[in-house]
């Protein structure tokens, strides 16, 4: 039992570290984790869930705004990008945030092709992150079910 828990914990640690190393997460995610305690064990999961809901909504808005036969309202696209940049920044979704920064510039430049490409990247990126974090939560669950405690991972 202990060996199994230890193995899961090591797996978990390595997984978290890799998410940071590969640039999926930044220190704001660490900050969010630090706000969670025994009294609010689902805080991070709740915030992330809201974030991904936001992604679906905002990407949808951007897609619609870009899918205009005729003039595209780039300020409308930009407003949605700005929102996504804000929320991705707040949860530590580093890659998504980075894409939003580029996206914003493309909107300001009214670069239609660029915006369409960037939107596709944003779509892929948030879905990838969602899957990775789901794996992370699953690992946490496995550890707890095996009788262990989810380790605090020091990313420094």
């Amino acid at each position, binding site marked *: 039992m202990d060996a199994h828990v230890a193995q899961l914990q090591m797996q978990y640690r390595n997984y978290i570290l890799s998410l940071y190393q590969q640039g999926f997460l930044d220190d*704001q995610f660490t*900050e*969010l984790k*630090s*706000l969670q305690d025994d009294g*609010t064990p689902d*805080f991070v999961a*709740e*915030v992330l869930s*809201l*974030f991904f809901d*936001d992604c679906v909504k905002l990407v949808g808005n951007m897609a619609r705004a870009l899918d205009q036969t005729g003039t595209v309202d780039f*300020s409308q696209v*930009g*407003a949605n990008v*700005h*929102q996504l*940049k*804000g*929320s991705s*920044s*707040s*949860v*530590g979704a580093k890659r998504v*945030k*980075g894409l939003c*920064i580029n996206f914003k510039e493309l909107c300001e430049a009214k670069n239609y092709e660029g915006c369409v490409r960037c939107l596709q990247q944003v779509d892929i990126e948030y879905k990838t992150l969602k899957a990775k974090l789901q794996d992370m939560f699953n690992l946490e669950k496995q550890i707890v079910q095996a009788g262990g405690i989810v380790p605090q991972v020091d990313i420094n």
Partner: protein
Amino acid sequence: MARDGGVSCLRSSEMMRVGIGGMESPPLDLDEVHVLAVDDSLVDRIVIERLLRITSCKVTAVDSGWRALEFLGLDNEKASAELDESSSFRQVPVVIMSSENVLTRIDRCLEEGAEDFLLKPVKLADVKRLRSYLTGDVKLSNANKRKLPEDSVPVNTSFPPPPSPFTISPDSSDSSPPLTISPELSDSSPPLSPLEISSSPLSSPIDDEDDDDVLTSSPESSPARRQKMRSPLD
């Protein structure tokens, strides 16, 4: 459409009791700071709510400046008409939070009376720092601050009436007028002077899309200072 939001610090009447004529202020009850958080982003609302709760603030989170006015019972014509320079809302601290690290914008916020400017994403250390110096300001409060009666601000929502008045900045991306608000105080307490925060400088000529949040703060407190400038986003 991104808008400016706001967070305001309300203080209970107990906290606002001030030394007048040699009387000492009572010790601060930290649990009684009530913050009104305004942000159009649900994610940010949840995060700031958590940050504030951890620092022992009571929090009400709303999604727009107009909802905030609604919460305060200031969304009707009569209330607006009563807003004037002597409104006690002036006492309430306002702090602005934004993801945009634009010096001109930050300066403008501070010039308009914001107590501080926090760069998003906001961290616990930021809120703790803010809390401690706002709390310190109330301790050093002068005769301008008065005891406020309970239920001094009428509200027409299901929210409980805030214990003291405050100032917020409404949505700036639209043509919101400068806002000065005064509560309907009873005669037993002299009113505080309101803090007038204009949303219009934030919306022009600067980027309209910013989702600035506003925390209200007292203008009498430590000089408005610029938030430490973090390095620009990658």
